[in-house]
């Protein structure tokens, strides 16, 4: 296990290095930020000064090299726009995105898995079919439209919940978060639902498919033949087997939710990293884009590692130490 984790961490460094190069070249290729940053009527002299100040006059490999050196020191560059460290900008906004993603995933897991199990056990019942039809709707509705409808219904028409923003944050054990205040929750719940609907549909369909696959297995029949109560058959024998693929997908989706909550954050004016990256792309704020992508890649690596470890806990046939990279 330890060997496995060390090997994975070493591999991760390689992945990070390769991504940094790709990201850097990609971002370098998409245009000159100076055109956007300084006013069009600036003199050529001012222009040159700005380019020199941002280090854009140096050759690309030199820029990359200094980026790597800074990266090793934990410095991901300064934002052209805010003139603040890019890392600081991202970390300021990360908690908002994390709490949104966290609540959205909890909703999709704790609503999705039970519904999926129910639909798997009653595939031909009205309720089972209803759940599956609902999941197709959840899949198909465009995220932005769905968000607007939620705002329309719950904020505008019913007036139950605020339409956007993050609201007050409570403090608990020294951590400030929307999760610790009622006002925070009232702001959080709509965007979280909006973000959760698609994942929930995915979890429902995945769970149902796996239940359908596990149910005819001999070990389920054998468990029943032992005289176990059906409750135990479902919650132990079936659930533990379906969790393996479900955990894998949820892990990957968690990364996606954090990285690409852009649409939801934009609609609900949620001050998270999704909104930051979109704004940064508009103004070609290179250091922020690069820093953002690096952090996201790092996060995916960590999540994948955690999923692998969790996987080995769920499935005794998977022995992490035995795997050869």
């Amino acid at each position, binding site marked *: 296990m330890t060997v496995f984790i060390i090997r994975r961490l070493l591999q991760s460094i390689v992945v990070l290095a390769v991504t940094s190069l790709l990201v850097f070249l990609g971002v370098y290729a998409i245009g000159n930020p100076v055109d956007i940053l300084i006013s069009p009527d600036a003199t050529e002299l001012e222009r040159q000064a700005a380019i020199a100040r941002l280090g854009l006059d140096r050759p690309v490999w030199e820029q990359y090299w200094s980026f790597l050196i800074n990266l090793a020191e934990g410095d991901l560059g300064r934002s052209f726009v805010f003139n603040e460290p890019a890392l600081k900008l991202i970390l300021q906004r990360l908690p908002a995105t994390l709490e949104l993603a966290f609540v959205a995933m909890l909703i999709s897991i704790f609503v999705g898995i039970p519904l999926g199990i129910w639909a798997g056990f009653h595939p031909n019942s009205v309720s089972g079919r209803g759940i599956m039809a609902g999941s197709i709707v959840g899949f198909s509705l465009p995220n932005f439209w769905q968000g607007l409808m939620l705002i329309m219904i719950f904020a505008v028409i019913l007036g139950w919940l605020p339409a956007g923003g993050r609201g007050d944050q409570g403090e608990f054990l020294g951590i400030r978060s929307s999760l610790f205040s009622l006002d925070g929750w009232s702001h959080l719940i709509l965007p979280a639902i909006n973000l959760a609907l698609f994942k929930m549909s995915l979890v429902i369909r995945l769970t149902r498919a796996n239940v359908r696959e596990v149910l005819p*297995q*001999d*070990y389920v*029949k*054998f*468990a*029943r*033949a*032992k*005289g*176990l*109560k059906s409750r*135990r058959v479902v919650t*132990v*024998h079936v659930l*533990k*087997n379906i969790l*393996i693929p479900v955990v894998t997908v949820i892990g990957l989706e968690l990364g996606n939710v954090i990285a690409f909550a852009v649409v939801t954050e934009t609609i609900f004016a949620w001050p998270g990293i999704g909104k930051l990256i979109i704004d940064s792309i508009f103004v070609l704020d290179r250091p922020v884009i690069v820093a953002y992508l690096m952090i996201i890649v790092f996060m995916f690596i960590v999540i994948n590692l955690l999923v692998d470890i969790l996987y080995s806990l*769920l*499935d*005794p*046939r998977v022995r992490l130490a035995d795997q050869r990279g």
Partner: protein
Amino acid sequence: MANGNRILEVEGLRTHFFTKAGVVKSVDDVSFTLDRGQVLGLVGESGSGKSVTGFSIMGLVDPPGRVVAGRIVFRGTDLAHLDEEAMRAIRGRRIAMIFQDPMMTLNPVLRIDTQMIEALQAHEQISDDDARARARDALGQVGIPSPEQRLKAYPHQFSGGMRQRVAIAIALLHHPDLIIADEPTTALDVTIQGQILYEVQKLVREQGTALIWITHDLSVVAGLADEICVMYAGRAVETGHVADVIERPLHPYTRGLINSVPSRNPRGQPLRQIQGVAPTPLKLPPGCAFQDRCPRADARCHSMPELSQPVAGHSVRCFRPHLEEAAA
């Protein structure tokens, strides 16, 4: 009840599956009886309904299938009309089952001790420690070395034969009155088959447990069973004492089966076989299901033959049984 030793009496059992394509009569009029300590061989080819018969007794027929007619009298109680909770209390405790493929019967993600302790605690108020001790003893009883350590293992750490021993140990945990073994040796190596057969026979004899041994292999039941019930296309076509059925088969199908056993064929000759293939369960011919493959079939066979008992204790479902040889 006339016979105090009677464990099980299955009478006119019919289990049908109501599929979209039509009604599949997987079990269609099967009857047999079983006394304490007796072994019944339930013989038939794939799809003949022998496994479904076993599941019907266990109350484990899944929709769209259900028992539509017949009585399954187990120690004086008709299981066919028992509610789920009462049936659950019998399952695993009074009637246990062993499945065909030991690779599939144990849950791959649960440890052996979990799977054994839950089986005990499903029927008894028993502490984890006591249950563990019982599980350990049961593993030792079926010949698993160092059972204490093996309890902590997962199924994939056992060989096929060892897994089947675990399954047998689980079946024996509550000292049931009846064990239904659904082809438990089919998926195993021949050497292991012999060992498992021997173990089961020994344990069943020691505990006086009745056994239904479901198989397609006549040579297995020949040495094991007291009674044989031969099934074809969901129907019991011949039942009787093992020696009678094997030595003097009445039904042309049983006869064909026995003649197909390679060791009964003369060397150098092409192996004898039953002509044709088994009919699809959705399109059974009216009358005897075996008529198309039967060398003796005539016009009468288009109507359904009833079970008759031309020889005492040996019944057959055929208009033209092989009585001439039986009498000889």
